[in-house]
């Protein structure tokens, strides 16, 4: 289950905000047991406060043949929440599975339905990776929200049996100069760094995007990559009657159970005079040190063969872990909940089940291995407790001091939640937006205007250097980082002997998705795919984090449906499968949804990391700069339209997936044969921005000659997809251009790297000193955030 209780948290926080905050909430005097539930069928239960609809509550009663106990109600309500049950997205997500062909599945060892997807990268190595969101908590408490977001996705990766080896963090914020962004961004960045650095996970990628629509709703997505030997793959299931259930890691406290605290409230119980606690804020504090120890502890447990099944605890805590483990196994499960080590006093079973305390894992262990298991935990100072065992029954039975408080068929909690066919409606305004053509906006025409535009674009918040952010992240730890920021993709060495490695990239231009969610999602995939290919790696598999507004808005649901279809169809064309992902709904401020933001992560493999392609030019003496791909007049959703005109309209750049595939093949072949000394993909800001970056990163000047027949503005700023700027040593130029010609990939010479020069010279238009470009590019974020 997920560690990112977006909806649960959102509900809980608003419960706190809206509720009578100052009223002390009285604890229930007596324990609600299955026996009591049977004998008091008419008791009024606060299911609506817990987010359940009338018919959902009725279904629970039907399943159980009685009213649920407090503890059962707590379990069902969290597990049937949007975040845990995917009730609005399920019918659409199915499409990923339906479109995945056997060829695409070939290298996939685990896919949708597991904690994270796993792919076989050869030589006995498997790689697991996944993206998740922690959006709402990061708005409430930026540092801790982001930190626990990283912690959560890392535990998902651990639960597959892998060693986490890298993280990436696609982030989105409101306008860069908005006061609230000054509150949220530094906290989020410090939180991502604070947690990831302390875990010893190099941060090798991510995004920082600013847009008005994220002002009250920042997106904090986090990706983790893990590595294992194929035989170490662990799947979450509890089989084998008699096997023990062991909870290990941190103690369980009152974290993130604001919503569930109504179960101890006077609205539910009119017993008077109790000294209960207030509804609690759902802010969880992360403890990366405990998680780091947990990682090492888990790996030692795996390598010693002491684990039958394993599950991380995240969103919905023990409710999720126990019901998912039990329903994936072949029997039932008995849990003695009072054995759970607690951090707070007087917690009731519903609270223990719902707590979202961080840094906990749950393992299934053979009875004869329990002692050895405990020894390993002791070595790492990890608290471990046997809390139950697998039974040969069918139900999940949970006891509290020998009283039965939960007795449910686990599948009904974990997998058989409600499924909604939400109304889907293409908004009428889509046509108006499409008709608002960006190609007719007033353009810079004189040389001076073009020069100013280059500088202004380079300094704009979405294109400027991310160093202020990435300098707070450790990218070196463990000594296997071959490429990280500011490279198009992160590249990590997996095997020191053979040099085998992986590459990752995450992308999404949500402006494109707003104009056309189907094409926009495809462009997000195309860009992540291209970024991976630009490092010299071969794209292999896809994960995603689908960030959208409210599913109850038919227009949003249409965006969602279109994005899923676009992404899935593009995956088929590119021949790489979606192995997992995450959906985050309700990202909106009032009735205003965020731009539809399907963040796509692509994983690639590289057989020898020493041939990775760097981004900066100047690495070799005398390089020719070649532009691969076609440039069309495409400004819909472009960064130029935003920076120059604050405009969002028209249609996004054309999608050509066959071209993307060809590009990737040519980059791979060129890298294998040592023909490419640098490469940088073209995206936001077009050729101008790619040139600025490749020159500044390589600390090397360049002379640029735009094609004679081209409109310089279009050549410099169009955002046509499927393009990469490559630098080839002069000695390889002919061989490389011949290869492009043979494969029918458009390839145009656009200039040369000039080690002797310290400027970017766009001939016949303008010459800008690198120092001036650097001041523009690097100055923006420090000026805004200190």
């Amino acid at each position, binding site marked *: 289950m997920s560690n990112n209780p977006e909806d649960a948290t959102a509900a809980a926080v608003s419960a706190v905000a809206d509720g009578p905050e100052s009223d002390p909430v009285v604890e229930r005097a007596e324990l609600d047991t299955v026996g009591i539930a049977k004998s008091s069928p008419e008791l009024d239960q606060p299911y609506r406060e817990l987010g359940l609809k009338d018919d959902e509550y009725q279904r629970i009663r039907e399943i159980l043949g009685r009213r649920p106990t407090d503890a059962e109600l707590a379990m069902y309500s969290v597990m049937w929440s949007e975040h845990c049950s995917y009730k609005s997205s399920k019918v659409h997500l199915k499409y990923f599975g339906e479109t995945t062909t056997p060829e695409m599945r070939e290298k996939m060892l685990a896919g949708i339905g597991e904690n994270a997807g796993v792919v076989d990268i050869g030589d006995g190595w498997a790689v697991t990776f996944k993206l998740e969101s922690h959006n709402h908590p990061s708005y409430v408490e930026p540092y*801790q929200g982001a930190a626990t977001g990283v912690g959560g996705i890392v535990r998902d990766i651990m639960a597959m049996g892998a060693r986490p080896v890298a993280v990436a963090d696609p982030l989105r914020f409101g306008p860069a100069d908005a006061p609230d962004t000054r509150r949220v961004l530094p906290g989020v960045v410090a939180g991502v760094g604070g947690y990831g650095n302390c875990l010893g996970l190099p941060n090798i990628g991510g995004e920082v995007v600013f847009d008005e629509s994220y002002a009250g709703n920042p997106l904090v997505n986090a990706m983790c990559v893990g590595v294992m030997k194929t035989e170490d793959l662990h799947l979450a299931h509890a089989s084998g009657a008699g096997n023990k259930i062991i909870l290990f890691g941190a103690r369980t*406290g009152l974290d993130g159970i604001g919503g569930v605290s109504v179960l101890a409230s006077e609205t539910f119980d009119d017993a008077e005079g109790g000294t209960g606690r207030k509804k*609690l804020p759902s802010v969880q*504090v992360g*403890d990366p040190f*405990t998680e780091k120890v947990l990682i090492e502890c888990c790996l030692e447990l795996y390598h010693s063969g002491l684990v039958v099944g394993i599950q991380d605890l995240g969103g919905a805590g023990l409710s999720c872990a126990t019901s998912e483990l039990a329903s994936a196994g072949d029997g039932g499960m008995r849990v003695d909940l009072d054995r759970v080590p607690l951090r707070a006093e007087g917690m009731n079973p519903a609270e223990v089940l719902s707590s979202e305390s*961080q840094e906990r894992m749950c393992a299934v262990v053979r009875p004869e291995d329990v002692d050895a298991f405990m020894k390993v935990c002791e070595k790492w*100072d990890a608290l471990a407790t046997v809390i139950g065992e697998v039974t040969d029954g069918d139900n999940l039975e949970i006891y509290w001091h020998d009283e039965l408080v939960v007795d449910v068929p686990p599948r009904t909690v974990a997998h058989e939640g409600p499924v909604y066919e939400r109304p889907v409606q293409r908004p009428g305004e889509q046509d108006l937006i499409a008709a608002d053509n960006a190609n007719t906006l007033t353009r810079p025409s004189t040389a001076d205007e073009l020069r100013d535009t280059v500088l202004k674009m380079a300094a704009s918040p979405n294109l400027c250097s991310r160093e202020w952010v990435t300098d707070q992240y450790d990218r070196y730890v463990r000594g296997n980082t071959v490429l990280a920021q500011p490279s198009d993709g992160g590249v990590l060495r997996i095997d020191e002997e053979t040099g085998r490695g992986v590459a990752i990239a995450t992308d999404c231009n949500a402006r494109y998705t707003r104009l056309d969610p189907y094409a926009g999602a495809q462009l997000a995939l195309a860009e992540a795919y291209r970024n991976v290919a630009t490092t010299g790696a071969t794209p292999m598999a896809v994960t995603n984090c689908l960030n959208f507004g409210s599913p109850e808005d038919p227009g949003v649901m249409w965006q969602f449906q279109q994005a899923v279809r676009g992404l899935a169809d593009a995956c088929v064309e590119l021949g790489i499968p979606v192995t997992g992902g995450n959906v985050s709904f309700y990202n909106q401020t009032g009735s205003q949804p965020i731009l539809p933001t399907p963040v796509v992560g692509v994983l690639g493999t590289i057989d020898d990391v020493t041939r990775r392609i760097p981004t900066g030019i100047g690495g070799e003496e005398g390089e020719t700069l070649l532009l691969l791909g076609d440039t069309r007049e495409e400004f819909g959703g472009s960064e130029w339209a935003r920076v120059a005109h604050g405009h969002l309209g028209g249609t996004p750049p054309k999608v050509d997936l066959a071209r993307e595939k060809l590009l990737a093949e040519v980059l791979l072949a060129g890298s294998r044969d040592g023909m490419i000394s640098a490469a940088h993909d073209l995206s936001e800001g077009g050729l101008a921005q790619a040139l600025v970056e490749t020159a500044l990163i390589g600390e090397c000047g360049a002379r640029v000659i735009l094609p004679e027949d081209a409109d310089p503005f279009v050549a410099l700023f169009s955002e046509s997809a499927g393009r990469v700027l490559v630098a080839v040593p002069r000695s390889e130029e002919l061989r490389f251009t011949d290869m492009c010609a043979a494969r029918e990939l458009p390839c145009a010479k656009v200039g040369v790297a000039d080690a002797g020069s310290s400027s970017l010279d766009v001939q016949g238009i303008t010459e800008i000193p690198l120092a001036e470009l650097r001041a523009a590019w690097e100055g923006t974020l420090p000026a805004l955030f200190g």
Partner: protein
Amino acid sequence: MARVVVDVMPKQEILDPQGQAVATALPRLGYAGISEVRQGKRFELEVADDVDDATLAQIAETLLANPVIEEWTVRRVEA
């Protein structure tokens, strides 16, 4: 001029990994009898006499403490 002390402590129900690290270290170092440790911040401010209590409270609430996870107290002390 007065000296003002602002104490900022993690809320009771909020996890305090820092305090916990100290609490687990103590028995290892041979110190028994310390059952709980919480770690917070202490600020010492030199304040002009015309700065009133309401202002100090506002500074504590909005700048020195993060009220989502911390609570604070302000007091004037002898310099």
